[in-house]
């Protein structure tokens, strides 16, 4: 009696023991992924009161270490050919002070042109080259081809504006992914669900909260498996089944948006996706990053990607196409069935003897 009880307890312990994290088969040290979005207006990044718009965006992430269910990831975000715009509201006195400072630079000088209430002066700067200064009654500005500064004074407040060309932004970050619940951890703080890949046993369900932005919950509003969608990426064509998840609309400073993401069901990797809101961007220090490739269009059937698109990876992904011309030898199959049968008979006889 003691032995079957011990055996039962042994199996029970195995079943109830803390489940080890399910690690994707491709997830190992050195594996990298590169996602790209190209084309005019393909990048929109916001940080505080600044908005950056550009024509090339790239997300690169690499597995540095996998240990005790924690994946250490190094990620680099690149954006090119950008224009930064920043509007800052100022108190009336401060705006007036800045306006007067600008006006005082041109007092007593002869304007090259006058346009209505405005006087235009030619200016030259070592960094920005040749430009113009525009001095009006309540506004003043300095304009170059790649840089503009302006200040506007109103009755009760003021507004300061900067527009400048930014050739490139390159930002690097290191974070961890806890495989037990697929959560992105930055500097020891869980920021929300990791959206770079899904775990087969933890597919995001409708209503599930992924993260929060400025007190707003980012929830999954749609989670469906597409059996009729093929996605063509520069890396490779991904065949069904594909998981599509969509979130609710949330608003930030200067933007409002929601995510639409496609995962390969056989590996769980992100194939293509538009995700302006993600804990990942928070780890980079941005409030939102919108990467939207020129050819992005969402449709059933065949599509070329939506948002940023997988351009390269060294992950050894298993192809989902059906194996042809391969079958289990009949003799092996018969031997296998006989072995299972014999094992079951032996097990039953043993248990009976113990009971006796």
């Amino acid at each position: 009696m003691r032995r079957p009880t011990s055996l039962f307890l042994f199996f029970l312990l195995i079943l109830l023991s803390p489940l080890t994290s399910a690690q994707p088969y491709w997830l190992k040290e050195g594996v990298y992924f590169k996602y790209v979005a190209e084309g005019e207006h393909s990048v929109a990044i916001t940080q505080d009161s600044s908005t950056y718009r550009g024509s090339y965006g790239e997300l690169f992430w690499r597995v540095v270490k996998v240990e005790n269910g924690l994946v250490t990831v190094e990620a680099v975000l690149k954006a090119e050919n950008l224009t930064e715009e920043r509007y800052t509201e100022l108190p009336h006195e401060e705006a007036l002070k800045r306006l007067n400072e600008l006006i005082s630079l041109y007092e007593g000088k002869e304007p090259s042109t006058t346009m209505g209430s405005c006087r235009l002066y030619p200016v030259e700067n070592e960094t920005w080259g040749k430009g113009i200064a525009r001095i009006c009654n309540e506004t003043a500005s300095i304009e170059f081809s790649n840089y503009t500064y302006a200040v506007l004074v109103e009755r009760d407040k003021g507004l300061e504006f900067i527009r400048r060309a930014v050739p490139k932004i390159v930002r690097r970050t290191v974070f961890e992914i806890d495989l037990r619940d697929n959560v992105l951890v930055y500097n020891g703080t869980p920021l929300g669900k990791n959206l770079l890949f899904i775990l087969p046993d933890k597919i995001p369900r409708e209503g599930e909260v992924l993260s929060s932005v400025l007190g707003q919950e980012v929830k999954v509003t749609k989670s469906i498996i597409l059996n009729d969608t093929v996605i063509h990426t520069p890396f490779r064509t991904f065949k069904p089944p594909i998981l599509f998840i969509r979130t609710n609309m949330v608003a930030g400073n200067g933007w409002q948006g929601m995510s639409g993401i496609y995962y390969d069901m056989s590996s769980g990797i992100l194939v293509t996706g538009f995700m302006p809101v993600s804990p990942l961007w928070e780890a980079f220090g941005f409030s939102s990053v919108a990467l939207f490739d020129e050819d992005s269009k969402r449709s059933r059937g065949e599509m070329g990607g939506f948002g940023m698109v997988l351009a390269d990876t060294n992950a050894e992904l298993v192809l989902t196409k059906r194996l042809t011309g391969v079958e289990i030898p009949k003799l092996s199959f018969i031997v296998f069935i006989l072995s299972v049968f014999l094992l079951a008979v032996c097990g039953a006889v043993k248990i009976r003897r113990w009971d006796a």
Partner: protein
Amino acid sequence: MRRVVVLLVSLWVVLSTAAMGMAWGAGRSMEEESSAEIEETLIRDPVVCDHDYVSNGIGTAHLTLCGKASQSNPPWLYAINVDAWTTGSCGIYYVSLVPSKAYLYVEVTAYSDCGKLNAMINWVEGH
């Protein structure tokens, strides 16, 4: 003598009250004229708009951007408004919101199921 003093004081009080009333009335009409002038200027400021749309068979997505080109504070745009809408199964995923006032030009980008949308207005168009 006393009667004369009372008469003079009464006269002074009446005249002062009348003068104060006239001054207040004049000031008020000036204020009204001034705010009317500003309102007229605001009404005179031309409205500039841009529109973009995309279509991919499942529907269409539209984006409209409008603003007023200030003639009193050139080249600022104000009263800027963005409207993004769709038809069919085309959903809007992202809209870059615009400030209430913008210098020289302002643009807005939106991303939808059907593709990318971009609209831009320039103060020069309303000059």
